[in-house]
């Protein structure tokens, strides 16, 4: 890209136009040949000429109370629902807890042959899984009233997942082609599950982190940043999480299960939910001082030093900075916390 930005404006404009003409890619209003790729680009240009509208879900403040919804179903059914959810890209990233909460919340609905389940253009709230029966998707192209059949669904298939994310008009009409039994979940339930589970998880992690002396100096924002990136790992009983003498670059928290630390074969520590180990690895890669072995099945979450550094900088620097802040603050107020007469009475805890 030659040419300076200090070109005369008119010249810059002309240059831009000339450039636009010389580019090989067909542009919005230029028709070149009729290859498949060009066809695709032309179609794209057509839809791109419209202004895109924003989408939004109902505002969720995170303070709403979420009541778990449980619709009884047998284990076979649950398994079927799970396997269908796993196939969908919107559900693939869910953790076990989230997936199970959704499986529990899914409701059974019935439609008769010929019933319209969802209507193109109307706003929708539900995602559907076909338990029994069959359905067909129909689309009317813009400018034409004729409906065109685009897809057939049979048991084990699903549709309408976009409605779980935000209020957008349905892309197709789906009609029951036989009597149908469907499993349905609506957006507010889905979103409430997602929010409450992620929020719960984050709060848990933040609280875990608060108890780690080495990380006491992190402020809320920094703690939240780390809580966001903790990576879960699962271990079976009697597995080693870290090994004495091994290189250490990860700090671990136990989310579920129990483990113990041994040094030269002797048990030196027991760990349960909320306990942590390996935090010195955030400072340097001194060899591990102990072997940590799981006693039960464990879920641990961890963060490694590089990642910590990328997000917040070196832990040493944070410790140093806080120390300086603290000293400065003390110099200004001339009262050290130890000398302060008493801490102010806490306000009544909000319930």
């Amino acid at each position, binding site marked *: *890209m030659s*040419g300076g*930005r*200090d*070109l005369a*404006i*008119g010249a*810059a*404009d002309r240059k*831009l*136009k000339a*450039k*636009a003409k010389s*580019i090989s*890619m067909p*542009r*919005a209003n230029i028709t070149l040949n009729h290859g498949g790729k060009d066809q695709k680009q032309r*179609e*794209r*240009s057509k*839809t*791109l*000429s419209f*202004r*895109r*509208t*924003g*989408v*939004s*879900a*109902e*505002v*969720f*403040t*995170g303070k709403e109370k979420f009541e778990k919804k449980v619709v009884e179903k047998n284990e076979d059914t649950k398994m079927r629902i799970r396997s269908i959810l796993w196939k969908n*890209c*919107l559900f693939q*990233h869910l953790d076990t807890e989230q997936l199970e909460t959704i499986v529990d919340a899914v409701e059974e609905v019935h439609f008769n042959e010929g019933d319209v389940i969802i209507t193109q253009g109307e706003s929708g709230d539900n995602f559907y899984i076909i338990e029994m029966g069959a359905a067909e998707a129909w689309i009317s192209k813009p400018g034409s009233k004729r409906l065109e059949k685009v897809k057939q669904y049979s048991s084990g298939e699903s549709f309408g*997942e*976009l409605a779980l*994310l*935000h*209020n*957008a008009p349905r*892309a197709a009409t789906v009609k029951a082609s036989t009597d149908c039994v469907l499993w349905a979940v609506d957006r507010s339930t889905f*979103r409430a599950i*997602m*929010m409450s589970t*992620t*929020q719960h998880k984050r709060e848990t992690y933040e609280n875990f982190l608060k108890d780690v002396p080495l990380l006491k100096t992190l402020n*809320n*924002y920094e703690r*939240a940043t780390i809580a*966001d*990136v903790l990576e879960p790992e699962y271990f079976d009983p009697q597995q080693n999480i870290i090994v004495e003498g091994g290189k250490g670059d990860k700090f671990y928290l136990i989310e579920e299960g129990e483990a113990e630390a041994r040094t030269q074969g002797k048990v030196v520590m027991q760990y349960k939910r909320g306990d942590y180990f390996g935090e010195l690895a955030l400072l340097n890669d001194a060899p591990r001082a102990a072997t940590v072995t799981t006693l039960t099945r464990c879920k641990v979450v961890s963060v490694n030093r590089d990642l910590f*550094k*990328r*997000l*917040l*900088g070196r832990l040493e620097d944070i410790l140093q900075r806080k120390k300086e802040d603290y000293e400065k603050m003390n110099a200004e107020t001339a009262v050290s916390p130890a000398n302060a007469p008493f801490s102010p009475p806490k306000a009544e805890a909000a319930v």
Partner: protein
Amino acid sequence: MFNKIFAQGPQGAGASPGKSRSDAGKDQHATSSVPRNLSTPGSPKHKAWLDNPKWADFKLGPILGTGSFGRVHLAHYQPQSRNLVCATKSLSKASILKTKQVIHVKQEKGILQRLDFPFIVNLFGYCQDDKCVHLVLEYVNGGEFFTYLRSTGRFDEQTTRFYASQVLLSFEYLHGQDIIYRDLKPENLLLDSKGNIKITDFGFAKQIDRRTYTLCGTPDYLAPEIILNKGHGKPVDWWAFGVLIFEMLAGYPPFYDDDALGTYQKILSGRLNFPGHFSRSAKDLIRRLLVADLTKRIGCLKGGVEEIKTHPWFASTNWDNVYNRKDTPPLRPKVSAEDDASCFDDYSKMEPMKHEFVLTPEDQKVFEDL
């Protein structure tokens, strides 16, 4: 304040972002050209503001744009013998209520009221009647950036960099006040008479404490963490910034698909296909912005926005010059007067605004503390 607005020259040059404010930010970052000390609540001190304008004093001109809850008109505010050219954004209270977006409207007004930045559209005031909330905005007469991008097809790297740099400084300014924008796209960028950017439409902007949860934005520009309902924060704006650079250079967005679900699948897949003409450094920058892993997306890591500003793709950019609008914009709108609306599409055949229902006194109460 009143006089200050009227005293402004054409194109709403506004309080010129002179050196003094640029200097204010210098103690923060050596290369930072954005003042960061504007986070005090309430409007910035020097901001021009109309107190309680009367809706009857606005003479409406042509429609400039329409949105999901209302439309924007060119308007002349004429109390007594004065005249202020402005744009009025009228939002239907009925549709705001129906789609449960009241809080977004309040956020839009509240946030715009506090902002004062060269590349962000200025809010002069607001008023309301039974049917609508009206925001009185600076009229930016060069038209929509979207129109220029689509009619040109795509921009060269120079042009793209020029506009990307103005957006970047705006995001640095917003994030410095813990505001996330959440709806970056060419449709929400206007050009002033000289060809500089003004970001408009703060309907999804939000003051955040760490993170927020409401899914909103435009499908092509949504970051993976928004689609996955993981809770999101400032990094979503840097993701969208990567999408914008891609779209300016390519002429189409990186995760383009016929329907939103297809777009989401592409966003979650993490695959990027670059057209052959992208420079190596452009590709590298985009790859570092369009990364799902929040520990790798630049803009909000330890290095902050400096990591983007010092990226090789911006090597030729002098950030102080960007802030002070010293470089000649590559696009030059053709405007003949302050209230020239010829750069905007013609909406004259548009039917008058419809309101879905009449609000009850209860409904009106929701808007009392606007």
